[in-house]
């Protein structure tokens, strides 16, 4: 393929006269140009490289948000040579170079437009270009799948204990559930005790971020006789009892306070282990003022029972619960049995699998979930991800599943076939033409 062949405008477009259409045609040409594609791919490569190195000091989740799901990033590159830091500072880490770059999100969006315009619409649709066109369709599908995954999917975890075969169940253990909880995101649930039922109103975590540091957020739930002021929000903290020897930097409420946490140097940060917390002040309509502390510790393996911060106003009981975001499943899942097999003579697992019952419409259907064999149902996918108690195991065993909902679940597989076919056709065609070409005979020695 030559440079001129690919930059030719298809006969259907670009023929209208006038300065406006000329400008439009120039803009289309620029958007679809191969040089733009090269630069976009190079920026994406730079982001990928810097985002990879950034993970040595920060959690993959944080880096993913900052580099790959953002509009703009100040990428940091710690200079090192032969594995040793260059120009080390006081803490021993190398000099940090700050590189401003657009985030991967706009880069990929622009790349998608570039691909549509230059790689599909403006490219000559000929048999010779068939492979390339098909490949570009596959890449476009992959980018769309990524977009859908980012915006229209959610995931979380679900932990269940083995159902006791002798019937001796414990009220504190979840054996079946149709809810799962987010790994990272918190929500503040405002609960009202209505006798037989609990009424819930939820406030997503991002609305509470303004309460970090000295800020505060006031919440006035509709129909409830109180106002909540959230302050001193911490993304990662620990609730600590105030003992005689314990220094507290935050206010002490009911004998406890929130101690901010951070990952120590050299420790690999794991954002799913970062527990948020905050202080709350409830102003009742009756003039009462109630102070409280909320801390979002999940109870493992699953939140069968939670113990919210409760208070009473005008004789009615209310509660506040800071928890990981809860999602509902359209079916229930019960863990009948868990099995872990080790490689002989070791503690290293060869196989761990859950024998579950899928509960729907009063029916129970048996299924097995194990590594590389998730359960797919109603758009949800349930994966085997963890087990416990670790390290010695059960009984009683519990099993932890990751549950994800992703409308584009199958699209990458499809894209893989499309791209494979496209590249095969294109490159085999090129090779066959080259073998028969005069260039080859002129270059062969």
């Amino acid at each position, binding site marked *: 393929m030559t*440079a001129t062949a690919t930059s030719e405008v298809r006969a259907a477009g670009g023929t209208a006269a006038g300065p406006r259409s000329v400008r439009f045609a120039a803009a289309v040409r620029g958007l679809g140009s191969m040089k733009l594609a090269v630069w976009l791919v190079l920026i994406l490569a730079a982001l*990928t490289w810097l985002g990879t190195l950034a993970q040595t000091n920060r959690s993959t989740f944080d880096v993913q948000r900052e580099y790959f799901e953002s509009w703009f990033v100040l990428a940091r590159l710690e200079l090192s040579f032969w594995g040793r830091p260059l120009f080390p500072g006081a803490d021993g880490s190398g000099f940090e170079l700050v590189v401003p770059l657009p985030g991967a999100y706009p880069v990929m969006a622009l790349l998608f437009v570039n691909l549509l315009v230059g790689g599909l619409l403006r490219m000559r649709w000929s048999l010779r270009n068939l492979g390339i066109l098909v490949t570009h369709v596959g890449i476009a599908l992959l980018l769309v799948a990524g977009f859908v995954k980012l915006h229209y999917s959610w995931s979380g975890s679900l932990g269940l204990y083995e159902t006791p075969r002798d019937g001796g169940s414990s009220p504190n253990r979840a054996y079946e559930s149709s809810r799962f909880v987010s790994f990272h995101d918190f929500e503040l649930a405002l609960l009202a005790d209505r006798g037989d039922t609990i009424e819930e109103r939820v406030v997503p975590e991002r609305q509470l971020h303004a309460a970090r540091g000295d800020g505060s957020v006031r919440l006035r739930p509709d129909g409830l006789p109180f106002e909540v002021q959230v302050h001193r929000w911490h993304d990662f903290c620990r609730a600590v009892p105030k003992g005689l020897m314990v220094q507290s930097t935050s206010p002490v409420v009911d004998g406890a306070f929130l101690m901010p946490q951070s990952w120590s140097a050299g420790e690999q940060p794991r954002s799913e282990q970062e527990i948020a917390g905050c202080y709350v002040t409830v102003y009742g309509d009756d003039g009462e003022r109630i102070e409280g502390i909320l801390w979002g510790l999940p109870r493992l393996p699953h939140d069968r029972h939670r113990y919210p911060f409760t208070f009473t106003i005008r004789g009615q009981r209310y509660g506040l619960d800071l928890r990981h975001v809860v999602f509902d499943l359209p079916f229930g899942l019960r863990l009948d049995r868990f099995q872990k097999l080790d490689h*002989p003579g*070791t503690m290293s697992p*060869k196989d761990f699998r859950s024998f579950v019952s899928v509960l729907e419409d009063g029916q129970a259907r048996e299924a097995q979930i194990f590594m590389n064999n998730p359960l797919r149902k109603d758009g949800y996918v349930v994966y085997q991800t963890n087990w416990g108690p670790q390290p010695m195991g059960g009984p009683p065993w519990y099993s932890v599943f990751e549950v994800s909902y992703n409308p584009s679940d199958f699209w990458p597989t499809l*894209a*893989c076939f499309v791209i494979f076919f496209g590249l095969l056709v294109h490159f085999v065609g090129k090779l066959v033409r080259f073998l028969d070409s005069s260039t080859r005979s002129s*270059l062969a*020695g």
Partner: protein
Amino acid sequence: MLHPRSLSLWFVSLWLALLAGCSRPAPRLQGELVRTEPWSVDFVASFGALPLQNEGRVMPFSSLAAFTLYAIHGRRDVQFVASGPGGDRTTKLNPTEWLLDVWCHPDQAALYPLFRIENVEVLSALGFAHGGQKQGFEYLSYAQLLPQGEKLQELAGKYQDKPQKQRSEAEEHIVQLFRQLLVYHRLHQQLAALQAPFQLRGDELRTLFGGADRIGIADVLQHADAFRSYVRGLGEDFANEKHGNLQQLLGFLEEASQRDRGPLLLPPARPPGEADTWHSIGEIVDAALRGRVDLQHVAMCRQLQAGLVAPAMADRQRHLREFQVAVAAAADRRGEQGSVALESYYYAANWHFHAMMTFLLGFVVAVVACVLPRSRLVWWLAMLVGGGAVAMLTADVWIRCLITGHPPITRLYDTFLFIGGGGALTLLVAELVLPRRIALVLAPFVGAVFIFLARLFEVADGQDTMKPLQAVLLSNFWLGVHVPTMNMGYFSGVAAAVVAMAWVAVRVLRLAHPNSTLAKALVRTTYGITCFSLATSVVGTILGGVWANDSWGRFWGWDPKENGALLICLSQIALLHARMSGMVRDAGFVLWSVVTGMIVVFSWFHTNLLGVGLHAYGFSSALLTGVWVSYGILGGFFVAGLLDVVLRPDPAPVERAVPDVALAE
């Protein structure tokens, strides 16, 4: 013009420089040899095939010996100088002979200079005198190290609490040294109870054991039922002196049942599925004292004990051979002997080593083919030898697949062989497509270098290269589809970079004009291989995502290994589009290919050493050094090429110039 002949000389020089190893005199043994007669060659070969279970799999004795020695000693043999009646003599033991000594002559083996200390601070920390040399290494024996065991344990415990990345080189060395000492200590102690007979006192006890004065573990197992009834009959009275030294005997047996923590030596009597874990001798002693005696195990223990204590070498080897035959027969009944026999054959046949030597021969023939450019016969001979070496390497990888029951690549070690073989094959095919003899020379060079690196890695890593896989990887479908495809991307990326480096060498050394057909052919070859690499990298990367979606619940997680694979794809996509759009021409294309080679190294190896993510398998400073050496070599070619292009952009034209346009299609 110098042409390929001079180029060949450069390759020869480079190869010789690579092979120039540093020789070092063997260390002196601190003590006297007890075993003066060597193990017979036949016995070592046959006993090496003794099946045992270690780290989750049944393997031959020789494999256990080899990987333990690599981990502790950092070499494939143990060498030392010992003084004898005829003066000083250098002894060289292979891994099987070494482990036989550890089991059968533990006191002698304890004197071998074994533990490799590479950091002088470690010697200081443990209180050993040294010459103050900062680099280089020394060997300490078990006998020297053991008295410092407590100190070592204390230091290792302290440093283990630090995150690995924060440990200094010496601290990490101490942590590793303590682990090595533990491994050795277990092997040293493992059969001690079988070697030290127990002296009986008291007629009752002697009668119980058939009138013997001294008994071993095998005797106890043989008379276990009677002994058990006797002890139970005594009740609380067992400590009474009138029963001889029964109390000491019970203590001896308790220790014997607990001390054995090494590899498992006795196959279970029950069939696989019902019982997959083999038994240690200690476990058998414990079971026997609880009333569960298996006669097959008793017989095996008797043979092993007889082998360990026989004074004459011939008797010793005979009994040990009987033990090996008995265990192999039991393993065979369980269907486990097949893979052990195959593994013994695999390491004895050493196909990849032969492939390396054949590659070297192929390299020499290819150089001759460059010197005699008109001879088609030599060209075909070089192709044949190179192809033969690839076939040998394929056989090696195939046998590994048969042993493990998995597709070709399951561990990092396998990637060396796969990339070496695949890279060589790619270059041979490139030579067939566009014969200029450069790829013919590069193919065996790449093959030999990667096998050499595989052998270095095998010893430096010191881990069983066929270790059972963790649960997530146990999917032969995905292991067979994603991993080889991705590695095809790696090896073709390497092959393209190597041809690009040849272009740089040709230009910088003035071997040919940049517009000559030779230089153009190199560009064209780089281009062709890059296309192949892009196709396999893209498909391999997406397949990896599809697998991740099935195992971890997400297609893409921006994990370092995934990012590394993506980087190769992005670099090659940008490269091909830049070439098509005229942003780069020959020089830019080739130099970019060298950079892509660095990205391949980053993706293939460096990402594993970052210690992050789901694909992180380990961290080692030696491996990191290897990575930086690779960057250094590739970077050196890049800089040299770039400087040459910038400083001498327009070399004088030559007669047989081929215009750029010819390469556009």
